[in-house]
């Protein structure tokens, strides 16, 4: 009885009694959610265009952040460092296309997936060989002043940084949507997603498309890396946190851009609420697995994810 009460009643009572605290938890989760969404977005882009489940997306975030910090530490001004890092990510995309994707074209998606796991290890080793592996602070000048937002006669504590992050996330999503719907190459990308043959018939080479998506994903990774790095330092665990983008993906559906966003927010917020209100009951650190178990349970009811297309089988 007491257990039931502890699990099913008192957390909700807490939420109702201290709405401001609850709002802060949600806002906190929201920010983490945006980070997840950004990583997940990178996945979705690549998956849509090449049916490759890019396990290395998380490590690309780390790699981009490491490169940026590394350049800054060597005295390169921030704006230039960002520019160079974008260049590095594009070069990386080209190298990946040449060395990995091209020889594996037409292979089973499974094989490509494993290859991206190999890529994960390679990039992690490469990034740390180049830039060292100690934790680094990343500062690109996003202000971090605390803000007090009035809420129902009380004040809710927010960080200006969080607002910026949310804003950047939104701009990123909007930018990608425009990119996909308004530019020639974007439309071509969508065409490939629908039909490889058709895209080639229109005269767009698959290689170009791959390089472009991987580059765009690289840039998305950089943005995620900047935000994450600024918040909690650039370190290896960045690529582990990025692993959490995986449940986000299956929640949202592998092919859906809005799915990545909504999935990220659900996981980010759900995880924080779970940790704060139920975590203490079971010993804490449930953030480690909450997202995965949530996604797992969800999948049992909707195997194709929230926004994924329903899989129809025929023989």
């Amino acid at each position: 009885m007491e257990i039931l009460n502890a699990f099913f009643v008192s957390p909700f009572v807490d939420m109702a009694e201290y709405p401001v605290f609850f709002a802060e938890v949600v806002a906190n989760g929201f920010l983490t959610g945006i980070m997840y969404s950004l990583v997940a977005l990178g996945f979705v882009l690549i998956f849509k265009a090449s049916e490759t489940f890019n396990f290395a997306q998380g490590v690309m975030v780390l790699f981009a952040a490491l490169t940026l910090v590394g350049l800054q530490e060597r005295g390169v001004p921030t704006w230039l460092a960002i520019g160079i890092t974008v260049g590095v990510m594009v070069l990386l995309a080209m190298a990946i296309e040449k060395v990995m994707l091209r020889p594996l074209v037409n292979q089973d998606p499974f094989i490509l997936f494993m290859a991206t796991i190999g890529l994960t290890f390679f990039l992690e080793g490469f990034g740390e060989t180049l830039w060292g592996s100690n934790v680094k602070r990343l500062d690109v000048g996003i202000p971090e002043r605390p803000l007090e937002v009035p809420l129902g006669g009380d004040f809710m504590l927010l960080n200006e940084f969080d607002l910026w992050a949310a804003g950047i996330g939104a701009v990123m999503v909007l930018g990608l949507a425009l990119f996909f719907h308004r530019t020639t190459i974007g439309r071509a990308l969508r065409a490939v997603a629908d039909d490889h043959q058709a895209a080639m018939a229109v005269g767009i080479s698959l290689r170009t498309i791959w390089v472009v998506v991987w580059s765009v994903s690289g840039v998305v990774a950089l943005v995620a890396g900047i935000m994450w790095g600024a918040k909690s330092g650039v370190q290896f665990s960045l690529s582990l946190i990025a692993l959490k983008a995986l449940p986000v993906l299956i929640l949202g559906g592998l092919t859906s851009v809005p799915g990545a966003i909504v999935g990220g927010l659900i996981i980010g917020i759900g995880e924080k609420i779970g940790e704060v209100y139920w975590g203490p009951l079971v010993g804490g650190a449930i953030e480690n697995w909450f997202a995965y178990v949530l996604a797992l349970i969800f999948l049992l009811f909707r195997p194709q994810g929230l926004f994924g297309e329903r899989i129809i089988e025929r023989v």
Partner: protein
Amino acid sequence: MFYREAGQFKSGYAADQAMFPIPQDRYVVIAIVAFAFLGVPLIANEYWLQAILIPFLVFSMAAIGLNLLTGYAGQLSLGTGGFMAVGGYMTYKFTTFWPELNIVACFLLSGLCAAGVGVLFGIPSLRIKGFYLAVATLAAQFFLVWTFNKVPWFYNYNPSGTVTAPPRTIFGTMFTGPEASAPARYLLALSIVVVFAFAAKNLVRGRVGRSWMAIRDMDIAAEIIGFRPFQTKLLAFAISSFYCGVAGAMSLFLWLGSVETEAYGIDISFQVLFMVIIGGLGSILGSFLGAAFITLMPILLTNAPQFFGFSMASDLQKHIELMIFGGLIIFFLIAEPHGLARLWQIAKEKLRRWPFPY
């Protein structure tokens, strides 16, 4: 020259159905197993046993387990470490609760526990496939490791949170615990692996193996033929997790002696997955080759710089190791997606035709 398939008379299908239809193969296997039992304990030193051979056996066991699930039944899993943890912690519980029970029996019981947990996490495989399933198995990985970390009952309320293998004897010989000699631990590990490797080989060449491969290659057609996808997949999860569980128990009791949950972390899951990829998906032999490769490579890398006469910071070395690791995986997938086992088979075919190329 001596290695010929044609011309070997097979008496009926029984001989053709044998595990190693070609006699030469059979002799080689018998010779290797005999050497492993009789020769190795005499010539291998402590370092070789503890740093190379025992981990090789532990990982072979886990790799066979994962290969049954991923290579044969086609269900990608990133939860190997979690299932190994079940084996390790449950053996610890069994043997501390019930010290007079034979330690091997404890291994097997904990393997059964792992099988049960495997089935539980395999249930979603009915509805979800491929990458979705891979992510779902991550749930098993993180949840299980968290559980063993957070529930003190599993480590007997020990304040340090570590579990240590208590000393256990079989027929008066000490096989586990700090006093157990390396050769003894090696021999026990070897016996377990040999028995279960043959069992796995038997499984995959019979009805069960065919049902797994059918589901892997084309699940719809498999169901139309009469395979029950759910049962087939769950059996794969159960048996695979059993192997991983026993491997986890071996890891604690016969290799490391004392572990915390990190010993069963996500890194282990990946490592075993790589063994399976590099060794060859859908090959028992490949599981061994992959385990050997991945256990030996770091040791080679550690010693290579000294060999060439320069030293390297251990940090840097670790990073370079990662790069080589990742690079090799990509290289293997491009050069030979079917892994070392396939290379071996090709070599054998060449040998068989030698000296006539056609």
